[in-house]
Protein backbone atom coordinates (compact mmCIF):
# COMPACT_ATOMS: atom_id res chain seq x y z
CA UNK A 1 0.00 0.00 0.00
CA UNK A 2 1.23 3.47 -0.82
CA UNK A 3 1.66 6.32 1.63
CA UNK A 4 -1.08 8.62 0.38
CA UNK A 5 -3.54 11.25 1.54
CA UNK A 6 -6.26 9.18 -0.15
CA UNK A 7 -6.13 6.69 2.70
CA UNK A 8 -7.47 7.60 6.14
CA UNK A 9 -5.08 5.17 7.81
CA UNK A 10 -2.08 7.18 6.55
CA UNK A 11 -3.62 10.47 7.65
CA UNK A 12 -4.61 9.07 11.04
CA UNK A 13 -1.08 7.79 11.63
CA UNK A 14 0.50 11.06 10.47
CA UNK A 15 -1.58 13.10 12.94
CA UNK A 16 -1.09 10.52 15.69
CA UNK A 17 2.69 10.82 15.26
CA UNK A 18 2.44 14.60 15.49
CA UNK A 19 0.03 14.46 18.44
CA UNK A 20 2.48 12.31 20.39
CA UNK A 21 5.47 14.54 19.43
CA UNK A 22 7.15 11.69 17.55
CA UNK A 23 7.52 14.08 14.58
CA UNK A 24 7.19 17.85 14.69
CA UNK A 25 4.39 19.88 13.13
CA UNK A 26 6.66 21.04 10.28
CA UNK A 27 7.23 17.49 8.99
CA UNK A 28 5.41 17.28 5.67
CA UNK A 29 3.01 14.42 5.08
CA UNK A 30 4.98 13.28 2.00
CA UNK A 31 8.23 13.11 4.00
CA UNK A 32 6.71 11.28 6.98
CA UNK A 33 6.08 8.05 5.04
CA UNK A 34 9.75 7.37 4.39
CA UNK A 35 10.91 8.20 7.91
CA UNK A 36 12.23 5.22 9.84
CA UNK A 37 11.47 4.19 13.42
CA UNK A 38 14.91 5.40 14.47
CA UNK A 39 13.85 8.92 13.40
CA UNK A 40 10.95 8.92 15.85
CA UNK A 41 11.27 10.12 19.44
CA UNK A 42 10.34 6.85 21.13
CA UNK A 43 13.24 4.95 19.52
CA UNK A 44 16.51 5.40 21.46
CA UNK A 45 19.08 3.39 19.51
CA UNK A 46 21.57 3.62 22.39
CA UNK A 47 19.24 2.14 24.97
CA UNK A 48 18.88 -1.56 25.65
CA UNK A 49 16.32 -3.69 23.85
CA UNK A 50 14.37 -3.89 27.12
CA UNK A 51 13.85 -0.14 27.36
CA UNK A 52 13.05 0.21 23.65
CA UNK A 53 10.39 -2.50 23.83
CA UNK A 54 8.70 -0.71 26.69
CA UNK A 55 8.64 2.56 24.74
CA UNK A 56 7.21 0.82 21.65
CA UNK A 57 4.46 -0.89 23.65
CA UNK A 58 3.45 2.39 25.33
CA UNK A 59 3.18 4.19 21.98
CA UNK A 60 1.39 1.32 20.21
CA UNK A 61 -1.17 1.19 23.01
CA UNK A 62 -1.71 4.96 22.73
CA UNK A 63 -2.21 4.70 18.93
CA UNK A 64 -4.71 1.87 19.38
CA UNK A 65 -6.79 3.98 21.75
CA UNK A 66 -6.71 6.96 19.37
CA UNK A 67 -7.72 4.92 16.29
CA UNK A 68 -10.59 3.17 18.07
CA UNK A 69 -11.97 5.99 20.20
CA UNK A 70 -11.25 9.17 18.21
CA UNK A 71 -11.37 7.81 14.63
CA UNK A 72 -13.96 5.19 15.56
CA UNK A 73 -12.06 2.57 13.55
CA UNK A 74 -12.96 -1.09 14.02
CA UNK A 75 -10.69 -4.10 14.23
CA UNK A 76 -10.41 -6.22 11.12
CA UNK A 77 -11.87 -9.71 11.24
CA UNK A 78 -9.87 -12.04 13.53
CA UNK A 79 -7.86 -9.08 14.89
CA UNK A 80 -8.08 -7.97 18.52
CA UNK A 81 -6.64 -5.12 20.55
CA UNK A 82 -3.78 -7.26 21.91
CA UNK A 83 -2.99 -8.50 18.41
CA UNK A 84 -2.93 -4.97 16.99
CA UNK A 85 -0.70 -3.62 19.74
CA UNK A 86 1.64 -6.60 19.39
CA UNK A 87 1.85 -6.20 15.59
CA UNK A 88 2.64 -2.49 15.86
CA UNK A 89 5.16 -3.11 18.65
CA UNK A 90 7.08 -5.71 16.64
CA UNK A 91 7.47 -3.38 13.68
CA UNK A 92 8.32 -0.40 15.89
CA UNK A 93 11.16 -2.37 17.47
CA UNK A 94 13.00 -2.46 14.14
CA UNK A 95 15.10 0.67 13.59
CA UNK A 96 14.93 0.72 9.81
CA UNK A 97 11.23 0.06 9.31
CA UNK A 98 9.42 3.03 7.78
CA UNK A 99 6.32 4.89 8.84
CA UNK A 100 4.73 3.70 5.59
CA UNK A 101 5.38 0.09 6.66
CA UNK A 102 3.82 0.87 10.04
CA UNK A 103 0.75 2.21 8.21
CA UNK A 104 0.54 -1.12 6.33
CA UNK A 105 0.44 -2.99 9.64
CA UNK A 106 -2.20 -0.61 10.99
CA UNK A 107 -4.22 -0.98 7.78
CA UNK A 108 -4.16 -4.75 8.22
CA UNK A 109 -5.41 -4.46 11.81
CA UNK A 110 -8.01 -1.65 11.63
CA UNK A 111 -10.93 -0.72 9.44
CA UNK A 112 -11.18 3.07 9.18
CA UNK A 113 -14.25 5.03 8.09
CA UNK A 114 -13.20 5.34 4.43
CA UNK A 115 -12.75 1.55 4.21
CA UNK A 116 -16.15 0.93 5.78
CA UNK A 117 -17.75 3.32 3.25
CA UNK A 118 -16.04 1.62 0.32
CA UNK A 119 -17.19 -1.79 1.48
CA UNK A 120 -20.76 -0.54 1.92
CA UNK A 121 -20.73 0.95 -1.61
CA UNK A 122 -19.53 -2.33 -3.03
Amino acid at each position, binding site marked *: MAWTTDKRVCKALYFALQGTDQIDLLTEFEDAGSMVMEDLLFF*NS*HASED*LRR*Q*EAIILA*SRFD*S*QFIKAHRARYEKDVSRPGSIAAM*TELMMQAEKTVEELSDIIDACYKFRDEKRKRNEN
Partner: protein
Amino acid sequence: MKKGSGMRIKTLFLLVAMYIVAQTIVAQEGILDDLRPRFVGLTKPQTDSLLKEGIKKIFSNPDLYNDLFRNHVEKLKSSGDRRYTFIRDLNLNFKSFQSDTLPVSLGFDYNYSNSWVKSRINESSTFMQSYNLLFKGNVAFRKRYNPNDFLEFLIAFDNSFLWGGQVAELDEETSIKMEELQDTILERRQRKDPSFLALYDELAGYISVTDQFALGIKGKFAFESNQDFSKKQFAPGLLITGGAKGWNKHEALRYFNILDYPFALIRLITGTDKKFTVYGATFPSMLFGIDYVIPQDDTTRKRLTGDLDAYSRLRFEIGFKTRVARIGREVLHFSSDFRWYKELKADRAIKDNHLDRSPFFVAAIESTSGLFVSYTTGRLPFDRRNDQVYALGFKYDLSNRND
Protein backbone atom coordinates in the same frame (compact mmCIF):
# COMPACT_ATOMS: atom_id res chain seq x y z
CA MET B 1 23.73 -24.46 23.49
CA LYS B 2 26.95 -22.70 24.49
CA LYS B 3 29.07 -24.17 21.73
CA GLY B 4 26.27 -23.99 19.16
CA SER B 5 25.45 -20.32 19.61
CA GLY B 6 29.11 -19.36 19.80
CA MET B 7 29.88 -21.28 16.63
CA ARG B 8 26.98 -19.70 14.77
CA ILE B 9 28.09 -16.17 15.68
CA LYS B 10 31.70 -17.03 14.80
CA THR B 11 30.52 -18.37 11.44
CA LEU B 12 28.54 -15.19 10.82
CA PHE B 13 31.61 -13.01 11.52
CA LEU B 14 33.74 -15.22 9.32
CA LEU B 15 31.29 -14.97 6.42
CA VAL B 16 31.10 -11.18 6.72
CA ALA B 17 34.89 -10.89 6.91
CA MET B 18 35.41 -13.26 3.95
CA TYR B 19 32.88 -11.37 1.87
CA ILE B 20 34.58 -8.04 2.56
CA VAL B 21 38.08 -9.37 1.90
CA ALA B 22 36.97 -11.03 -1.36
CA GLN B 23 35.33 -7.85 -2.58
CA THR B 24 38.07 -5.46 -1.56
CA ILE B 25 41.16 -7.43 -2.66
CA VAL B 26 39.92 -7.49 -6.24
CA ALA B 27 39.08 -3.80 -6.06
CA GLN B 28 42.49 -2.91 -4.55
CA GLU B 29 44.37 -4.71 -7.35
CA GLY B 30 42.32 -2.90 -9.98
CA ILE B 31 42.98 0.51 -8.45
CA LEU B 32 46.72 -0.22 -8.14
CA ASP B 33 46.91 -1.17 -11.84
CA ASP B 34 45.06 2.01 -12.82
CA LEU B 35 47.19 4.36 -10.74
CA ARG B 36 50.73 3.00 -11.33
CA PRO B 37 51.24 4.63 -14.75
CA ARG B 38 50.22 8.05 -13.36
CA PHE B 39 53.30 8.41 -11.11
CA VAL B 40 55.81 9.64 -13.67
CA GLY B 41 59.33 10.50 -12.48
CA LEU B 42 59.09 8.75 -9.13
CA THR B 43 61.10 5.71 -8.11
CA LYS B 44 59.25 2.40 -7.67
CA PRO B 45 59.56 2.42 -3.83
CA GLN B 46 58.20 6.01 -3.75
CA THR B 47 55.31 5.06 -6.06
CA ASP B 48 54.50 1.96 -4.03
CA SER B 49 54.63 3.88 -0.77
CA LEU B 50 52.23 6.57 -2.07
CA LEU B 51 49.93 3.96 -3.54
CA LYS B 52 49.84 1.89 -0.35
CA GLU B 53 49.01 4.99 1.71
CA GLY B 54 46.21 5.95 -0.70
CA ILE B 55 44.77 2.46 -0.79
CA LYS B 56 44.89 2.22 3.00
CA LYS B 57 42.86 5.44 3.28
CA ILE B 58 40.25 4.33 0.76
CA PHE B 59 39.80 0.87 2.26
CA SER B 60 39.67 2.02 5.87
CA ASN B 61 36.54 4.04 5.16
CA PRO B 62 33.44 2.29 6.57
CA ASP B 63 31.25 3.95 3.91
CA LEU B 64 32.85 1.71 1.28
CA TYR B 65 31.80 -1.44 3.13
CA ASN B 66 28.33 -0.10 3.85
CA ASP B 67 27.91 0.51 0.10
CA LEU B 68 29.17 -2.99 -0.72
CA PHE B 69 26.89 -4.62 1.81
CA ARG B 70 23.91 -2.54 0.68
CA ASN B 71 24.50 -3.61 -2.92
CA HIS B 72 24.68 -7.23 -1.77
CA VAL B 73 21.35 -6.88 0.09
CA GLU B 74 19.75 -5.27 -2.96
CA LYS B 75 20.96 -8.17 -5.13
CA LEU B 76 19.44 -10.70 -2.71
CA LYS B 77 16.21 -8.75 -2.68
CA SER B 78 15.90 -8.48 -6.46
CA SER B 79 16.74 -12.18 -6.94
CA GLY B 80 14.06 -13.20 -4.43
CA ASP B 81 16.66 -14.98 -2.30
CA ARG B 82 15.15 -16.32 0.94
CA ARG B 83 18.16 -15.10 2.90
CA TYR B 84 17.03 -11.53 2.16
CA THR B 85 14.42 -11.45 4.97
CA PHE B 86 17.00 -12.50 7.56
CA ILE B 87 19.71 -10.11 6.31
CA ARG B 88 17.19 -7.25 6.07
CA ASP B 89 16.21 -7.74 9.72
CA LEU B 90 19.83 -8.08 10.75
CA ASN B 91 20.78 -4.44 11.20
CA LEU B 92 24.45 -4.37 10.17
CA ASN B 93 26.36 -1.11 10.25
CA PHE B 94 30.05 -0.73 9.30
CA LYS B 95 31.90 1.95 11.23
CA SER B 96 35.31 3.01 12.48
CA PHE B 97 36.24 2.76 16.15
CA GLN B 98 38.42 5.37 17.88
CA SER B 99 39.38 4.92 21.50
CA ASP B 100 41.69 7.16 23.57
CA THR B 101 45.17 7.08 21.99
CA LEU B 102 44.58 3.85 20.01
CA PRO B 103 44.55 3.98 16.20
CA VAL B 104 41.28 4.09 14.28
CA SER B 105 39.99 0.60 13.55
CA LEU B 106 37.36 -0.56 11.09
CA GLY B 107 34.54 -2.82 12.21
CA PHE B 108 30.78 -3.22 12.41
CA ASP B 109 27.88 -3.49 14.80
CA TYR B 110 24.95 -5.85 14.39
CA ASN B 111 21.55 -6.20 16.00
CA TYR B 112 18.84 -8.81 15.39
CA SER B 113 15.65 -9.22 17.39
CA ASN B 114 12.40 -11.11 17.06
CA SER B 115 9.41 -11.74 19.35
CA TRP B 116 6.26 -13.79 19.81
CA VAL B 117 3.53 -12.03 21.77
CA LYS B 118 0.22 -12.78 23.50
CA SER B 119 -1.77 -10.39 25.64
CA ARG B 120 -4.68 -9.83 27.98
CA ILE B 121 -6.41 -6.47 27.94
CA ASN B 122 -9.27 -4.88 29.88
CA GLU B 123 -10.80 -1.37 29.89
CA SER B 124 -8.33 0.29 32.27
CA SER B 125 -5.14 -1.66 31.74
CA THR B 126 -3.18 -3.79 29.31
CA PHE B 127 -1.16 -6.87 30.15
CA MET B 128 1.16 -8.21 27.45
CA GLN B 129 3.35 -11.31 27.50
CA SER B 130 6.08 -11.94 24.94
CA TYR B 131 8.96 -14.28 24.16
CA ASN B 132 11.96 -12.42 22.71
CA LEU B 133 15.10 -13.46 20.86
CA LEU B 134 18.00 -11.03 20.46
CA PHE B 135 21.64 -10.99 19.44
CA LYS B 136 23.79 -7.90 19.08
CA GLY B 137 27.31 -6.53 19.51
CA ASN B 138 30.27 -4.55 18.21
CA VAL B 139 33.08 -6.21 16.23
CA ALA B 140 36.37 -4.54 15.29
CA PHE B 141 38.46 -6.20 12.57
CA ARG B 142 41.43 -5.55 14.88
CA LYS B 143 40.04 -6.88 18.13
CA ARG B 144 42.43 -5.06 20.46
CA TYR B 145 41.12 -1.69 19.21
CA ASN B 146 37.49 -2.52 20.00
CA PRO B 147 36.32 -0.12 22.76
CA ASN B 148 32.88 -1.77 23.11
CA ASP B 149 33.93 -5.39 23.24
CA PHE B 150 30.62 -6.92 24.39
CA LEU B 151 28.37 -9.36 22.49
CA GLU B 152 25.00 -10.54 23.75
CA PHE B 153 22.63 -13.39 22.87
CA LEU B 154 19.37 -13.35 24.77
CA ILE B 155 16.10 -15.24 25.20
CA ALA B 156 13.50 -13.56 27.40
CA PHE B 157 9.97 -13.88 28.76
CA ASP B 158 8.45 -10.43 29.11
CA ASN B 159 5.37 -9.21 31.02
CA SER B 160 4.25 -5.61 30.46
CA PHE B 161 1.54 -3.81 32.43
CA LEU B 162 0.13 -0.52 31.07
CA TRP B 163 -2.22 1.94 32.73
CA GLY B 164 -3.79 5.03 31.16
CA GLY B 165 -3.00 6.46 27.73
CA GLN B 166 -6.73 6.26 27.00
CA VAL B 167 -8.22 8.70 24.49
CA ALA B 168 -11.72 10.01 25.31
CA GLU B 169 -14.30 8.50 22.98
CA LEU B 170 -15.79 10.77 20.30
CA ASP B 171 -19.28 10.32 18.91
CA GLU B 172 -19.66 9.66 15.17
CA GLU B 173 -20.44 13.29 14.28
CA THR B 174 -17.52 14.73 16.26
CA SER B 175 -15.17 12.10 14.91
CA ILE B 176 -16.12 13.04 11.33
CA LYS B 177 -15.55 16.73 12.14
CA MET B 178 -12.09 15.92 13.49
CA GLU B 179 -11.17 14.02 10.34
CA GLU B 180 -12.48 16.89 8.17
CA LEU B 181 -10.26 19.26 10.12
CA GLN B 182 -7.27 16.96 9.47
CA ASP B 183 -8.12 17.04 5.77
CA THR B 184 -8.26 20.86 5.86
CA ILE B 185 -4.82 21.00 7.50
CA LEU B 186 -3.36 18.75 4.79
CA GLU B 187 -4.99 20.77 2.00
CA ARG B 188 -3.58 24.02 3.38
CA ARG B 189 -0.16 22.44 3.79
CA GLN B 190 -0.22 21.39 0.14
CA ARG B 191 -1.19 24.95 -0.90
CA LYS B 192 1.73 26.23 1.24
CA ASP B 193 -0.81 28.26 3.21
CA PRO B 194 0.93 29.01 6.56
CA SER B 195 -2.42 29.28 8.36
CA PHE B 196 -2.41 25.48 8.73
CA LEU B 197 -0.35 25.74 11.93
CA ALA B 198 -3.10 27.59 13.77
CA LEU B 199 -5.52 24.73 13.05
CA TYR B 200 -3.42 22.31 15.12
CA ASP B 201 -4.65 24.01 18.32
CA GLU B 202 -8.22 23.33 17.23
CA LEU B 203 -7.33 19.73 16.36
CA ALA B 204 -5.78 19.19 19.81
CA GLY B 205 -9.16 20.10 21.32
CA TYR B 206 -10.66 16.91 19.87
CA ILE B 207 -8.13 14.57 21.49
CA SER B 208 -8.33 14.27 25.26
CA VAL B 209 -5.98 11.63 26.63
CA THR B 210 -4.90 10.46 30.07
CA ASP B 211 -1.28 10.17 31.21
CA GLN B 212 0.21 6.73 30.80
CA PHE B 213 2.34 4.49 33.05
CA ALA B 214 4.14 1.26 32.27
CA LEU B 215 5.73 -1.47 34.35
CA GLY B 216 7.60 -4.41 32.85
CA ILE B 217 8.81 -7.59 34.52
CA LYS B 218 11.13 -9.76 32.48
CA GLY B 219 12.81 -13.09 33.05
CA LYS B 220 15.78 -13.58 30.75
CA PHE B 221 18.56 -15.95 29.89
CA ALA B 222 21.56 -14.25 28.29
CA PHE B 223 24.86 -15.44 26.88
CA GLU B 224 27.49 -12.68 26.99
CA SER B 225 30.97 -12.70 25.52
CA ASN B 226 33.75 -10.56 24.13
CA GLN B 227 34.27 -10.66 20.37
CA ASP B 228 36.77 -13.54 20.22
CA PHE B 229 34.85 -15.56 22.87
CA SER B 230 37.94 -15.73 25.09
CA LYS B 231 35.65 -14.45 27.86
CA LYS B 232 32.09 -15.70 28.08
CA GLN B 233 29.37 -16.19 30.65
CA PHE B 234 25.71 -17.06 31.12
CA ALA B 235 23.61 -14.42 32.85
CA PRO B 236 20.04 -15.45 33.72
CA GLY B 237 18.23 -12.65 35.48
CA LEU B 238 15.17 -10.68 36.40
CA LEU B 239 14.50 -7.15 35.11
CA ILE B 240 11.97 -4.52 36.09
CA THR B 241 11.35 -1.64 33.69
CA GLY B 242 9.35 1.51 34.39
CA GLY B 243 8.13 4.36 32.24
CA ALA B 244 5.62 7.18 32.09
CA LYS B 245 4.21 9.47 29.41
CA GLY B 246 2.70 12.84 30.21
CA TRP B 247 0.28 12.84 27.26
CA ASN B 248 -2.22 15.14 28.96
CA LYS B 249 -1.15 18.76 28.42
CA HIS B 250 -3.33 19.92 31.34
CA GLU B 251 -1.77 17.57 33.90
CA ALA B 252 1.41 18.26 35.87
CA LEU B 253 3.22 15.00 35.03
CA ARG B 254 5.00 16.32 31.93
CA TYR B 255 6.58 19.14 33.96
CA PHE B 256 8.49 16.54 35.99
CA ASN B 257 10.43 15.64 32.83
CA ILE B 258 13.35 17.77 34.02
CA LEU B 259 15.84 16.26 31.54
CA ASP B 260 13.87 17.89 28.73
CA TYR B 261 14.05 21.45 30.14
CA PRO B 262 17.39 22.46 28.49
CA PHE B 263 16.16 21.06 25.17
CA ALA B 264 12.80 22.83 25.52
CA LEU B 265 14.81 26.05 25.84
CA ILE B 266 16.91 25.23 22.74
CA ARG B 267 13.74 24.41 20.79
CA LEU B 268 12.27 27.77 21.83
CA ILE B 269 15.43 29.73 20.94
CA THR B 270 15.77 28.03 17.54
CA GLY B 271 12.08 28.53 16.75
CA THR B 272 11.50 24.76 16.60
CA ASP B 273 8.63 25.16 19.09
CA LYS B 274 6.70 28.42 19.14
CA LYS B 275 6.53 28.39 22.95
CA PHE B 276 8.47 26.75 25.82
CA THR B 277 7.19 23.16 25.60
CA VAL B 278 8.33 20.26 27.76
CA TYR B 279 7.52 17.02 25.96
CA GLY B 280 5.48 14.49 27.92
CA ALA B 281 6.47 11.87 25.35
CA THR B 282 10.17 11.97 26.20
CA PHE B 283 10.07 10.91 29.83
CA PRO B 284 13.17 8.81 30.48
CA SER B 285 12.67 5.06 30.80
CA MET B 286 14.31 3.12 33.59
CA LEU B 287 15.40 -0.44 34.22
CA PHE B 288 16.51 -2.21 37.35
CA GLY B 289 17.62 -5.81 37.39
CA ILE B 290 19.55 -8.56 39.04
CA ASP B 291 21.56 -11.17 37.11
CA TYR B 292 23.04 -14.42 38.33
CA VAL B 293 26.28 -14.57 36.35
CA ILE B 294 27.85 -17.96 35.62
CA PRO B 295 31.33 -17.36 34.15
CA GLN B 296 32.48 -19.96 31.60
CA ASP B 297 35.76 -18.59 30.34
CA ASP B 298 37.27 -15.55 31.98
CA THR B 299 41.04 -15.70 32.42
CA THR B 300 41.17 -12.29 34.12
CA ARG B 301 38.67 -13.35 36.74
CA LYS B 302 40.30 -16.74 37.26
CA ARG B 303 43.72 -15.13 37.71
CA LEU B 304 42.36 -12.68 40.28
CA THR B 305 40.07 -14.92 42.32
CA GLY B 306 41.47 -18.35 41.60
CA ASP B 307 38.09 -19.75 40.49
CA LEU B 308 35.07 -19.09 38.28
CA ASP B 309 32.33 -19.14 40.90
CA ALA B 310 28.91 -17.74 40.00
CA TYR B 311 28.02 -14.32 41.41
CA SER B 312 25.06 -11.91 41.55
CA ARG B 313 25.14 -8.63 39.65
CA LEU B 314 22.87 -5.60 39.96
CA ARG B 315 22.04 -3.62 36.88
CA PHE B 316 20.51 -0.17 36.42
CA GLU B 317 19.79 1.71 33.21
CA ILE B 318 18.14 4.99 32.25
CA GLY B 319 17.55 6.07 28.65
CA PHE B 320 16.44 9.42 27.29
CA LYS B 321 15.79 10.81 23.81
CA THR B 322 14.37 14.15 22.76
CA ARG B 323 14.25 16.64 19.89
CA VAL B 324 16.94 19.33 19.94
CA ALA B 325 16.02 21.52 16.98
CA ARG B 326 14.83 21.66 13.42
CA ILE B 327 17.24 23.35 11.03
CA GLY B 328 15.65 23.59 7.60
CA ARG B 329 14.67 20.05 6.65
CA GLU B 330 17.04 18.50 9.19
CA VAL B 331 15.79 17.48 12.62
CA LEU B 332 18.39 16.97 15.35
CA HIS B 333 17.76 14.47 18.15
CA PHE B 334 19.65 14.02 21.40
CA SER B 335 19.76 10.51 22.80
CA SER B 336 21.58 9.15 25.80
CA ASP B 337 21.81 6.02 27.88
CA PHE B 338 23.43 5.32 31.22
CA ARG B 339 24.08 1.77 32.45
CA TRP B 340 25.56 0.66 35.72
CA TYR B 341 26.54 -2.89 36.68
CA LYS B 342 27.59 -3.81 40.22
CA GLU B 343 28.81 -7.19 41.41
CA LEU B 344 27.42 -8.13 44.83
CA LYS B 345 29.78 -9.44 47.51
CA ALA B 346 32.75 -9.21 45.16
CA ASP B 347 36.14 -10.63 46.16
CA ARG B 348 38.78 -8.20 47.42
CA ALA B 349 40.91 -8.84 44.30
CA ILE B 350 37.98 -7.96 42.02
CA LYS B 351 37.33 -4.76 43.99
CA ASP B 352 41.01 -3.77 44.05
CA ASN B 353 41.07 -4.01 40.26
CA HIS B 354 37.82 -2.02 39.98
CA LEU B 355 36.11 -4.88 38.18
CA ASP B 356 33.13 -4.99 40.55
CA ARG B 357 31.51 -1.93 38.98
CA SER B 358 30.91 -1.07 35.31
CA PRO B 359 29.37 2.34 34.67
CA PHE B 360 28.73 3.11 31.01
CA PHE B 361 27.38 6.29 29.43
CA VAL B 362 26.68 7.25 25.83
CA ALA B 363 25.29 10.52 24.47
CA ALA B 364 24.73 11.41 20.84
CA ILE B 365 23.29 14.09 18.64
CA GLU B 366 21.94 12.62 15.41
CA SER B 367 20.34 14.23 12.40
CA THR B 368 17.56 12.64 10.37
CA SER B 369 19.89 12.53 7.33
CA GLY B 370 22.24 10.21 9.24
CA LEU B 371 25.01 12.51 10.46
CA PHE B 372 25.89 11.86 14.08
CA VAL B 373 28.36 12.85 16.77
CA SER B 374 28.59 10.72 19.88
CA TYR B 375 30.53 10.42 23.11
CA THR B 376 30.91 7.22 25.11
CA THR B 377 32.58 6.82 28.48
CA GLY B 378 32.95 4.02 31.00
CA ARG B 379 32.93 0.33 30.32
CA LEU B 380 30.60 -2.59 29.87
CA PRO B 381 31.19 -5.96 31.59
CA PHE B 382 34.41 -7.61 30.22
CA ASP B 383 36.12 -4.28 29.44
CA ARG B 384 39.26 -3.91 31.55
CA ARG B 385 39.62 -0.17 31.10
CA ASN B 386 37.40 2.88 31.21
CA ASP B 387 37.35 4.17 27.63
CA GLN B 388 36.37 7.53 26.31
CA VAL B 389 35.24 7.21 22.72
CA TYR B 390 34.31 10.03 20.40
CA ALA B 391 32.66 9.18 17.11
CA LEU B 392 31.62 11.29 14.18
CA GLY B 393 30.04 9.63 11.22
CA PHE B 394 27.20 8.98 8.88
CA LYS B 395 24.65 6.19 9.34
CA TYR B 396 23.66 4.07 6.36
CA ASP B 397 20.38 2.23 6.24
CA LEU B 398 20.58 -1.31 4.91
CA SER B 399 16.86 -1.63 5.09
CA ASN B 400 13.89 -2.05 2.83
CA ARG B 401 12.99 1.64 2.75
CA ASN B 402 11.98 1.30 -0.86
CA ASP B 403 9.97 -1.88 -0.50
